């Protein structure tokens, strides 16, 4: 088993970071906002403890966007490199845990996706073909209330 930090970077290389380890959960979110933020079928959000995250370069390149609140705070938030547009990790101030876009990783995080979430919003053109659990919003809320693995923000 390899040890040591897991590195990541944006497409242009301007933003670089490392994480000491993945904490989880690792969720594939099909909500409408995540599909627009990724331009793809889902966002792959890997849970990381903020204390395990270190930004190595490119703080000045990171641009943050907060979408209007639909149901309840916190607002939907996405951060990207202003030069190449790649989603990049950007821990909210005061957070102890946050999600990083797994596509930015340059190395294997030694974690695998736990589940698909917001599957009721899934795009019509994408078929989920793997055997991971598929949670809709009510199921996800129940999981979040249930136990420590349920942590993570409610999205919409």
């Amino acid at each position, binding site marked *: 088993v390899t040890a040591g930090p897991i590195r990541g970077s944006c497409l242009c290389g301007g933003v670089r970071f490392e994480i000491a380890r993945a904490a989880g959960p690792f969720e594939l979110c099909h909500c409408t906002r995540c*599909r627009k933020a990724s331009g*793809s079928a889902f966002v792959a959000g890997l849970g990381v403890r903020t204390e395990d995250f270190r930004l190595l370069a490119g703080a000045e390149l990171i641009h943050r966007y907060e979408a209007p609140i639909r149901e309840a705070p916190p607002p939907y938030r*996405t951060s990207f490199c202003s030069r190449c547009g790649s989603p990049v990790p950007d821990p909210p101030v005061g957070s102890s845990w946050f999600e990083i876009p797994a596509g930015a990783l340059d190395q294997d995080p030694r974690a695998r996706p736990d589940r698909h979430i917001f599957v009721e919003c899934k795009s019509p*053109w994408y078929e989920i073909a793997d055997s991971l659990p598929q949670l809709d919003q009510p199921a996800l809320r129940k999981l979040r209330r249930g136990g420590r693995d349920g942590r993570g923000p409610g999205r919409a």
Partner: protein
Amino acid sequence: MTASCLCGGVRIEISGKVGPLVYCHCTRCQKASGTAFGANADVRAQYWRLAAGDELIREFESSPGVWRAFCQRCGSPLYSRRTAAPDTFRVRLGILDGDPGRRALAHFWVGSKAAWHEIAGDLPRFARGPAEHADELAARADGAT
């Protein structure tokens, strides 16, 4: 059909059929989307109209002659275009507001797929891109009829 970014500032109207939907597992598509693969389809320029947000679009040249466009306000990936192919926009499917009426053709560049992602399902898997596998794709299309 329309396509729009997360903040709604960029709006694109697509008046014709989009090309085959492809899942691209190349490293650049992973980084540009922040996820396991890019989900793309070609749209001919004649069917493509930028209805709003021209001033918000920023393009990054990810390899010589290949430009990836995103919204500078919200970061949504929008499309890519090639200097060598001015009549084609490769739209990012996640920004579509409706159903393009097609399903995915295949996975491409599977050799560079993310370590954490497992490709599941019956779609064909190719080592390189759609252009490099054009003959096989044409043969499959014939065989499917």
